[in-house]
């Protein structure tokens, strides 16, 4: 009886896992599949297969430029989120000070507030500043970077904090008692030990920044759109597999990024 029950439960668990995985993976597979359809207008069933959409996607100036804007913005946002996020995590994890909870919540809020709300709020805020000072922020590269740094920051803080919490403090104390200064302890002991967390934080902040649509849509300037906005704009007038091709390239890029990172820093240790 017990054996039957446990086999039953194991089967149900396996089936459940398969369904959930299916929900996650199937749309991605669908997009990749679609990107090879030779149909002029996206439709089922495919009439044949072609690489044309990839050629078109690479040829399209809006996608090439969008990719560059997205890539640069995400890279700078990632760097900013590290420069701010690593010290912030250290302070939040290591020290108990008044307002610590509030600061944690503020740093995490971009993750919780819907992108549209955050984006419009930033847009209005930037306009207010412009009215007060005459300095234009909305629609400029710095404005976009500020928004993306905000998107990225919660991820760095969360992942770096987790690895700091999991770290054995006495290792630092050992270095300290062996004569190391606080700086040496940080750079030679703490940093290498939390490296997986930092790399994971960097990676995730890059990805969430790269794929952001809602915040960016308020803040891009004329002639300077991100890849995701270029895609939305394209979709407005076209329904063909070019977007599938662009999406596939992104999926491949992010997968490669994840695999490479995982090779150097076991990502599962960062959580």
């Amino acid at each position: 009886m017990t054996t039957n029950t446990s086999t039953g439960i194991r089967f149900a668990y396996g089936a459940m896992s398969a369904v959930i995985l299916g929900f996650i993976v199937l749309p991605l597979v669908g997009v990749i599949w679609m990107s090879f359809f030779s149909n002029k207008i996206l439709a089922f069933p495919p009439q044949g297969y072609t690489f044309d959409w990839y050629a078109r996607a690479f040829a399209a100036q809006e996608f090439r430029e969008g990719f560059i804007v997205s890539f640069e913005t995400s890279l700078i946002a990632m760097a900013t989120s590290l420069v701010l996020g690593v010290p912030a995590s250290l302070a939040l994890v290591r020290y108990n000070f008044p307002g610590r909870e509030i600061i944690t919540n503020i740093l995490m809020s971009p993750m919780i507030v819907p992108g549209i709300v955050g984006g419009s709020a930033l847009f209005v805020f930037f306009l207010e500043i412009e009215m007060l000072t005459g300095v234009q922020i909305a629609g400029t590269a710095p404005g976009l970077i500020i928004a993306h740094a905000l998107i990225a920051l919660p991820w760095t803080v969360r992942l770096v904090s987790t690895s700091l919490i999991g770290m054995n403090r006495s290792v630092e104390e050992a270095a300290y008692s062996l004569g190391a200064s606080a700086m040496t302890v940080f750079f030679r002991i703490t940093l290498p030990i939390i490296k997986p967390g930092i790399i994971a934080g960097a990676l995730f902040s890059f990805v969430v920044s790269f794929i952001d649509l809602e915040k960016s849509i308020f803040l891009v300037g004329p002639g300077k759109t991100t890849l995701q906005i270029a895609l939305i704009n394209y979709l407005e007038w076209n329904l063909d597999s070019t977007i599938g091709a662009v999406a596939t390239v992104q999926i491949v890029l992010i997968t490669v990024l994840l695999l490479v990172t995982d090779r150097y820093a076991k990502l599962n240790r960062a959580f």
Partner: protein
Amino acid sequence: MPEVILQDVAKHYGSSVAVENMSMHISPGELVALLGPSGCGKTTTLRMIGGFVDITSGRISVGGRDVTALPPNRRNMGFVFQNYALFPHMTVAENVAFGLEMRKLSKSDISGKVAQALARVRLSSFADRLPKQLSGGQQQRVALARALVIEPDVLLLDEPLSNLDATLRQEMKIEIRQLQQSLGLTTIFVTHDQDEAMSTADRMVLMRQGRVEQVGAPDEIYDQPASRFAAEFMGIPNLLPGRMNGPGRFELEDGTTVHLDGQKRYHGLCVLALRPESIGIGKDAPVGAFNSLPGTVEIVTYHGASLEYRVRLGTSTFLTARTAAPGLGGPDAIPIGTEVRLFWPYASGVLVPEV
């Protein structure tokens, strides 16, 4: 090797007291064990000496140098942590070299000293391994080598044996003692295990609730515990509450009177602490200056060289007697349920305060 002096050291966390009135004088080359149950302040004391915990008041000096205000990196102390705290991203050799690099020694000096330190703990062939590739005992020895290679003024050990299995613990205990003696290191060692402290330390500091309960050589504390707490902590199982009711007369709670030699006196409620090996067990008590009480054998336990009898006296009083094992010159084993007499010389036992 310098001496370590603690003067009236205290540590308060807000209104709660972790350590109070802690004064100690540790002689050069001495191994002192800080002993006590968890929460007694022993680790806090060690961390204050190491500089990891700021002291609320008092003074700590090492070899005449006041180190109270110095950070850990300027105290020149070797600290071995309970979990070893090896640098996980560095090899064994890099771990050991770290302290020497901090002292800005030349590359060749460092590699020479590292090799020597690893040889001392018999880990020369493990120099290029990472800590996670080592067993617990090996990690412990790396931690020791790393702490010793900097030629510290004082060696501080925080529960160094608690994460090892029994055989290894025995081995490491001897190894630590030998290293400490051959280097003549002033060493302070924290443990909650009285056996460990007794077999390793020159002197023990028994702590309780942030205060020193008793200081002395292991045999001094075992022979003359200063309180019921000390007696219990030293593993003395026979603690009989009662009161003095005349010179050399001690009345137990059930009204029985036992004799003490004239030296012992105590006013009011106190406890007679009797070591199990000072209690004899047999059909009849010997004649002479012996106390004798009737009882029934409840449990017999074998401890290799000795047998331990738990004997019931009356309804809720038990005494434990230990005899040599039958094969080692002891009497034949007495079966459970036997009516026996327990006896001990008037001169045995210590009177300690009830608290």
